[in-house]
């Protein structure tokens, strides 16, 4: 009897590995292998034409101590990630609040508001290069209001804001997620608040926001991580330069330039690992601190 069982077990084991084998091969060739190559490369100097040379931590030391463009890129990236996320989150909290009301035509509206967020980034960036041009859409609108708009993409003070404003066009995605979260809040809470005579503002800040905090929190981490990896938008808006004067240089753009423009493969790998560390640190910090400000219904506060 025992033998039969172990034979079945063995068969299951074999079939398991057969079924997952495509992914295992892909894991080795496209993920684990590259991870190992990448970390080794980050300790070397290599231009892919000459043999690589081991240089220890020099790439990392140079990046942190000498490379002023990299430091600027890190600052810009963090600024952009925060600005675009705070704008998007604030905006989508507002929109989701109104979308949650039983109004006529609201279901059509929900689809409409989501659609801009599915348009490929290249098309959006093309459009916004015109929107932000000196006599483009935005400055024309500002002109109606009597404001003299800046040269958005050529002014070091405004270029990151321009990118952050552009990211608002994808606001539909997070709005839909927040809306789904709002629909999950028990109606009894609102009824109780109504009986107690709470006004809409109080209800929003004392019930809706706290109940929504896990969704906001999750969205925020994902948004920040995506923000740190920004590449396409900047590349297209500034034609690969991160200009003016590196005012919109981003970590991944710097990485791309070193890897595929100057062929500093080792140096670029170093940048990739610093980015990886930043993403991991961010994820950990937010996860560890979440219990302080995220409310879960099942959780007992001590």
């Amino acid at each position, binding site marked *: 009897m025992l033998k039969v069982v172990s034979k079945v077990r063995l068969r299951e084991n074999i079939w398991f590995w057969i079924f997952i084998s495509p992914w295992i091969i892909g894991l080795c060739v496209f993920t684990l292998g590259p*991870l190992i190559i990448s970390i080794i490369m980050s300790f070397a100097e290599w231009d892919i034409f000459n043999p690589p040379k081991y240089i220890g931590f020099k790439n990392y030391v140079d990046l942190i101590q000498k490379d002023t463009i990299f430091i600027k890129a890190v600052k810009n990236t963090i600024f952009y990630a925060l600005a675009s996320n705070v704008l998007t989150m604030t905006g989508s909290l507002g929109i989701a609040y109104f979308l949650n009301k039983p109004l006529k035509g609201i279901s059509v509206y929900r689809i*409409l508001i989501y659609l801009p967020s599915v348009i490929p980034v290249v098309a959006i960036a093309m459009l916004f290069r015109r929107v932000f041009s000196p006599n483009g859409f935005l400055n024309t609108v500002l002109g109606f209001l009597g404001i003299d708009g800046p040269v958005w993409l050529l002014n070091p003070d405004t270029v990151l804001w321009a990118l952050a404003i552009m990211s608002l066009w994808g606001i539909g995605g997070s709005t839909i997620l927040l809306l*789904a979260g709002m629909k999950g809040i028990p109606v009894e809470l609102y009824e109780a608040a109504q009986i107690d005579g709470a006004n809409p503002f109080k209800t929003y800040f004392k019930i809706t926001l706290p109940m929504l905090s896990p969704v906001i929190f999750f969205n925020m981490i994902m948004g920040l991580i995506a923000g740190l990896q920004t590449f396409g938008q900047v590349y297209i808006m500034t034609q690969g330069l991160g200009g003016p004067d590196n005012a919109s240089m981003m970590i991944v753009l710097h990485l791309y330039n070193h890897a595929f423009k100057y062929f500093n493969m080792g140096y670029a790998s170093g940048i990739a690992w610093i980015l990886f560390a930043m993403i991991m640190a961010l994820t950990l910090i937010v996860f560890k601190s979440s219990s302080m400000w995220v409310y879960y219904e099942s959780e007992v506060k001590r």
Partner: protein
Amino acid sequence: MIRNNNLLERTVSYLFLIIVAVVLLMPFLYMISIALSSDKTVAENAFTILPGEFVFSNIVKILTETQVSRYFFNSLIICLSAMVGQILVSSFVAYGFARFRARGKNIVFMLLLATMMIPAEVTMIPQFLIFRELKMIDTLFPMIIPNFFGGAFNIFLLRQSIMRIPYAFDEAAIVEGASYPRIWANMILPMIKPILVAIGIFTFSWNWGWFTGPLIYLSSSTKFPLALGLYFFTETSNKGAIPPWNLIMVTSLILALPMLLVYALGQKYVYSANIGAGSTLK
């Protein structure tokens, strides 16, 4: 009193939502306005927010005088191959994770989840070097091949939905003498069709708009997908020349249109897949 309050609330809500819609849709109108402007307007950089001219011949020009139809075709090849790869292989692997008891399975599954946290930038350079060794630079293969090894998120999503199918179905099929690959192909796949459609949509939209990969791997313009080809419209041959903004916007619209169609039509599949993933992550 209550009714008054309600009316005020409704008015404010509608007003707010209308303003948001206008703000989001105005740039889109601007896009159409530029797309339909004449070359003269482009040269003078005198675009209007609302369409003033209707030069529909710009569309004809795009189809006859540029490589856009070629780009479109390249994009289709990449997207369709990626969809086939992801749907078949991810569901195959997911079936393994969902249905077999095996030693070390939990560790392997944790590994699967962990790979989702690795940013693509870290593996990007070595992957480029690998494809360079394989002499596949400047071909579409680097964009296609990785899909035939499954995607971690898709595998995770599919595993969840396969696990929701009662195992009694599998047992019945086994009793009838069906092999596991047969059960996967003839029984499981038809039962998880909605989620497969959702994964098809995700894969399509990701690859349709993908910019970084093609930018790294491709150099000859005959192989460009639409997103990359569109970008190179703005790289005018001599510095300072004005890019053909009207044609660029027509192409942008051609790039956007399939995405709008796919999401408008496939909305319910995407929605249910998102909710499914959300509730299992809790």
